[in-house]
């Protein structure tokens, strides 16, 4: 399918919207420019650190988005999806922040090509609701369903299937990009603009819509193998030896365990369950998407320090202890396997007013020694971080600022108020950079700017493209200011 316009016969339009042509969007005349009202409000990322104030506007149509970009003032603007980036990527002090969730239509599903055309503000949750009953799943699913397609492209997100499927933008056939001049361009893989935008943190323009290739599935359940790894060596050996047998693989690692147990972990790996794996009753509606009830949201105003070393240590030990030494073929709901945290809305509030940071880095295969040293340093530091995630990435993609590259990635949450955390993480950065690794910008709120070019060697090309396509700096975020991107 070359263009979302001109629906082929096989296409079904599941959602309210007719398959209007995204490609035919043109900038409206200024005189008739639609106005989107904006409110001045404080904005943070998911980690709730470093709030800044911006004018938040929610364009409801492509034309409104174009008008908003054209009218943005001296401090520019940045697109925002569901705000799941942990740091300051989707905030813009003193300028505009465009909440893209108003562009929420699924435009077309092409059952022959296995693609969906949707607005950039559509969430992966919504896509699952609509697509699963039709036998399709999103090609890449992060640890939460509550991210938008725009955010998935902007951060070039990865999932538990990175070692076989790569990152999100590998599955993007094209997208519509609203650039600084107010024009809308159809951008396809293999072009500079595509590679700059894939992982480009919204700094090349506003994505309005995208065509994404889907994964056919027979059921909405997962078949999952669970095993325990006694320590880091054991864990890395198991991941290296058998990851290729699974479409999805991840390890939850206990970073408070020390001594011989350093790096102990629980591996959960699996695939979409085939029809014949389902019990007879479930086979009647094999594709039903029932994420299960969400618990009440975490209350506001929780104190800092709720997640101390002791409580987190106990939790981690309990959770490691209760995991089966080895279990195969367990059937799990999609939501339990992919998005366990989505059951508690606003769980980020449990870190209290001080918020938290997520530290995620990747180092290459062969840098196991570096990985080990970092795990030991975190364990020795007694960071109260529960459920850190370790995964083995496959080869990286072409995105200039795209995070994943072949090797080991570790992600952990830490309360921002932990004394000395800033210098401690700076020290880890040095180690990561020396090993040729990098930290993930979508999680970042604190990287030393000097390291950006070391970790992302194509950052220069990225700046050059921005200087060329956006000389006035229309697309600006707190992250781009902080890291001079």
């Amino acid at each position, binding site marked *: 399918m070359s263009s979302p316009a001109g629906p082929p016969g096989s296409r079904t339009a599941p959602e309210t919207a007719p398959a209007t042509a995204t490609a035919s969007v043109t900038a409206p005349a200024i005189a008739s420019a639609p106005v989107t009202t904006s409110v001045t409000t404080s904005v943070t990322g998911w980690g709730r650190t*470093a709030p800044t104030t911006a004018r938040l506007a929610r364009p409801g149509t492509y034309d409104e988005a174009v008008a908003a970009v054209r009218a943005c003032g001296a401090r520019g603007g940045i697109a925002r999806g569901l705000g799941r980036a942990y740091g300051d990527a989707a905030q813009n*002090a003193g300028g505009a922040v465009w909440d893209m969730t108003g562009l929420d239509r699924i435009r077309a599903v092409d059952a022959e090509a296995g693609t969906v055309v949707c607005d950039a503000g559509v969430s992966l949750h919504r896509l699952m609701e609509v697509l699963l009953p039709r036998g399709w799943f999103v090609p890449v699913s992060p640890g939460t369903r509550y991210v938008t397609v725009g955010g998935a492209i902007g951060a070039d997100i990865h999932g538990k299937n990175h070692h076989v499927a790569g990152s999100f933008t590998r599955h993007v056939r094209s997208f519509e990009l609203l650039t600084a001049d107010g024009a809308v361009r159809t951008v396809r893989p293999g072009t500079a603009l595509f590679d700059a935008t894939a992982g480009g943190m919204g700094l090349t323009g506003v994505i309005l819509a995208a065509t994404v290739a889907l994964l056919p599935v027979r059921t909405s359940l997962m078949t999952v193998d669970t095993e325990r790894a006694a320590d880091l060596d054991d864990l890395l050996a198991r991941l290296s030896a058998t990851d290729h047998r699974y479409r999805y693989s991840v390890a939850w690692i206990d970073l408070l365990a020390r001594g011989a147990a350093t790096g102990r972990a629980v591996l959960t790996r699996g695939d979409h369950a085939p029809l014949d794996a389902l019990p007879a009753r479930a086979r009647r509606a094999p594709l039903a998407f029932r994420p299960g009830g969400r618990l009440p949201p975490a209350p506001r105003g929780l104190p800092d320090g709720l997640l101390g070393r002791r409580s987190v240590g106990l939790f981690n030990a309990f959770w490691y202890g209760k995991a089966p030494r080895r279990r195969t073929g367990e059937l799990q709901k999609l939501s339990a396997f992919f998005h366990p945290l989505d059951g508690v809305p606003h769980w980020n509030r449990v870190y209290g007013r001080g918020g938290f940071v997520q530290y995620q880095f990747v180092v290459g295969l062969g840098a196991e020694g570096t990985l080990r040293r970092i795990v030991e340093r975190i364990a020795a530091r007694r960071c109260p971080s529960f459920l850190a995630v370790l995964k083995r990435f496959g080869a990286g993609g072409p995105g200039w600022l795209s995070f994943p590259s072949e090797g080991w990635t570790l992600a952990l949450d830490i309360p921002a108020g932990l004394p000395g955390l800033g210098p401690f993480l700076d020290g880890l950065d040095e180690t990561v950079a020396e090993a040729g690794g990098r930290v993930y910008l979508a999680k970042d709120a604190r990287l030393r700017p000097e390291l950006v070019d070391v970790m992302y060697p194509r950052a220069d090309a990225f700046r050059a493209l921005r200087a060329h396509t956006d000389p006035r700096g229309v697309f600006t975020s707190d992250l781009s200011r902080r890291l001079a991107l």
Partner: protein
Amino acid sequence: MKDAFGSPQSLLILGGTSEIALATARRLVARRTRTVWLAGRPSPALEAAAGRLRSLGADVRTVAFDALDTDGHEEALGKVFAEGDIDVVLLAFGVLGDQKRAEAEPATAVQVAQTNYTGAVSAALVCARSLRVQGHGSLVVLSSVAGERARRSNFVYGSSKAGLDAFAQGLGDALYGTGVHVMVVRPGFVRTRMTAGLDPAPLATTPAAVAVAIEAGLRRRSEAVWVPGALRPMMTVLRHMPRALFRRLPV
């Protein structure tokens, strides 16, 4: 921009030779601060302070600024903000004055009041306007425990700090929701040239300790910071002490 721990990348010091401010700048430069503006009355001391910060790796510029020349504030400070965002403004200028002399020569008391209060009101409002446009930033105001309850021995200085403290709190409330954070810092006796030759009061501290407290306050986005922290309960007691008793305290 400040990072997740409140560490600024750019810093503007009003009162560029203040020992407390420079101790703070050294700490912040050791973290994320790369751009420092030292605003103050032109002097070799000001240039020397800039040189020392440069040797730590910061890009430092000085700008002529006199607290008493309120008419010139817009221009002097406007120039700084025109060059780029300022993440933290540290309002540090102030004079202690000589209480005995002030009582004999009211003109010297006026000088203290105009520097510590009027000059600060003007400079803070000029900066606040630019910070507001930025949508982020902290204004750190060096008040003093002396403003918490004016004492017989230095009530001219104390009252000027009381005025400044009240002003800064009000400004903080006015800026609530704009992304701009105002933090009032209330040190006790700090060993600097301002207090040279005076007998240290109980709980006397150092510029470095004030710098640590300021850095922590930025991380927590505190609205008020006492240095040392023990002064807070102590001043609560003093504040409620009957006048007749307070008057006779040997402080």
